[in-house]
């Protein structure tokens, strides 16, 4: 099924991300999290959960190396390409949905003739086959959100950071996305999802719960 199809595209790599004693706060905010320890491994989905404003996106940016934590360290081993799917979809208005997914494949050295069928395959995983030829500007919010996921998957990241992937989706589409996220992880990538969607949470192998009072006090409780 879906998992097998995705695994064809993924890079099998022995990589890991280890967070130790992570704490962060911005000037003017309370401590967002304190003394977080976790290990992220390939083929695992880690959920970062908690209410709005608790620091989920901030933790993702620390994992990506774009933000430096106040204390603690993040050790990325063997992570060559980090893919980030932002909370808000963004794209080139006049280019087609297909073009957006083809692009990372071209960047990786494929020719368009090779990249198009591959991009179509990835898009169909996200139920985007129908809208492949539509310009980005004509996509609905949910379609654009899934397109961003498809594009990120096409870039074959070792570490895929996904911010609120199901926020704009209905229950059925969210379920599709959740199952595809599972398959992406199964193909050997480290997947981290910031979410407050219960459905997404169930596909996670582990959850860093920033909403729990303990997370703010000392360490996050890792639930399995």
């Amino acid at each position, binding site marked *: 099924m879906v998992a097998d199809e995705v695994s064809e595209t993924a890079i099998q790599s022995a990589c890991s991300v280890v967070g130790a004693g992570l704490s962060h706060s911005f000037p003017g905010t309370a401590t967002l999290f304190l003394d977080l320890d976790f290990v992220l491994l390939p083929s695992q989905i880690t959920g970062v959960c908690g209410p709005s404003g608790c620091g989920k996106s901030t933790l993702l940016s620390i994992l990506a190396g774009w933000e430096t934590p106040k204390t603690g360290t993040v050790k990325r081993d063997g992570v060559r390409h980090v893919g980030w799917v932002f909370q808000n979809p963004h794209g*080139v208005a006049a280019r087609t949905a297909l073009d957006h997914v083809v692009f990372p494949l071209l960047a990786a050295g494929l*020719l368009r003739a090779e990249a198009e069928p591959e991009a179509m395959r990835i898009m169909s995983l996200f139920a985007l086959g129908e809208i492949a030829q539509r310009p980005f500007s004509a996509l609905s919010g949910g379609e654009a959100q899934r397109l961003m996921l498809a594009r990120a998957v096409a*870039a074959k990241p070792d570490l895929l950071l996904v911010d609120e992937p199901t926020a704009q989706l209905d229950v059925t589409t969210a379920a599709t996305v959740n199952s595809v996220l599972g398959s992406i992880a199964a193909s050997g990538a480290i997947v981290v999802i910031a979410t407050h969607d219960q459905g997404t949470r169930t596909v996670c192998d582990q959850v860093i719960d920033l909403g729990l009072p303990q997370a703010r006090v000392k360490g996050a409780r890792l639930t399995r």
Partner: protein
Amino acid sequence: MRARSVISEAGRNLACGTSKPLLFALLVAVLSGVLAVADVSAIARVDAAAVRFQAAAASMRGIAAERRIDAASCDALARLSTIAASGALSTGEVLRLDAAPMTQFHTYRVSPGFGSLLGVGGATTDGVWVEAELAAALGLQAGMTVPTERGDLTVAALYRWPNDGRDARLGFSILIPESASEPFDECWMSSWPVLPSNDDLLLSTAYVIPGSNAALQVVPLNKNLGRDYDANAEFTSRVTSEARWFALLAGVALAVVAVSRRRMEYAAALHAGQDRTSQLLTVLLETLVWAGAGALTGTVTCLLAARLSGVTDWYTTWLVTVRCPVLAFIGALLGSAGAILCIKERLLFRYFRNR
């Protein structure tokens, strides 16, 4: 990224209007075209002044040294590449025509080369040259024979010598060319552009007489215009002489705008794994098309302007002013390259952080 992919991505961005090629081509065409046409018209003004200057014989200069000018040397000046025409002149005796015995006409003895100064260079020296207004008053035409107190004279040619501030002596006069070996009084030359170094050549046509220390002075033949007109300085100091650098700046600025309005797209492309070289090449290719189309339009505009402006040398005028569109084009390429190299993947992150 493969070269074919770079080309196809650039092509798609152009075709679907992502890079707004029509708008930017139009802006390049208008900006560089306006600057180039302004330069053409400034050059046309300088040119018209130069034409007026030459038409008023203001580009002629002469020396006067009684019975000290070697006519052969004076005529020979015209063979130099910097001197257009030259000839020697001496005041002759007054002449009466049989038809008007009461009137005395001024005559001048001139060397054969003198005709080139008057535009009658090809005319035969077998006969006299009559000033056009005088000829009209007497009803004379080239080829006619006039009985005079010195016998029959043939009118070999007519020359124009309007009263516009130039040395008035040749107006209403008759010139008698002769290949005399005896010294003349004056040597005149006409050169364009007027070069100070030619003055020394002119002075060299006078015999040096030991003991005569009266310094010879080179004077312009038209005292109204000829004093301190420097066509070269007029040209280099024209208002639009720096227009091409503004065109370069305009090209750079347009390209920077073209890249920075798409900065999120470029940052996302880097995030999607595109290498900097292929990103640079894609951007340059797109710029090549819109800036090229714009600059080409500017070039044609400038060519038409040069041809229609009526300048003496439209081709050189075009070569000078076409630098505006050419530099706008180069500026656009440089601006694109510079701007795209400033795009950082981090931009994407910062953008989404700051929303």
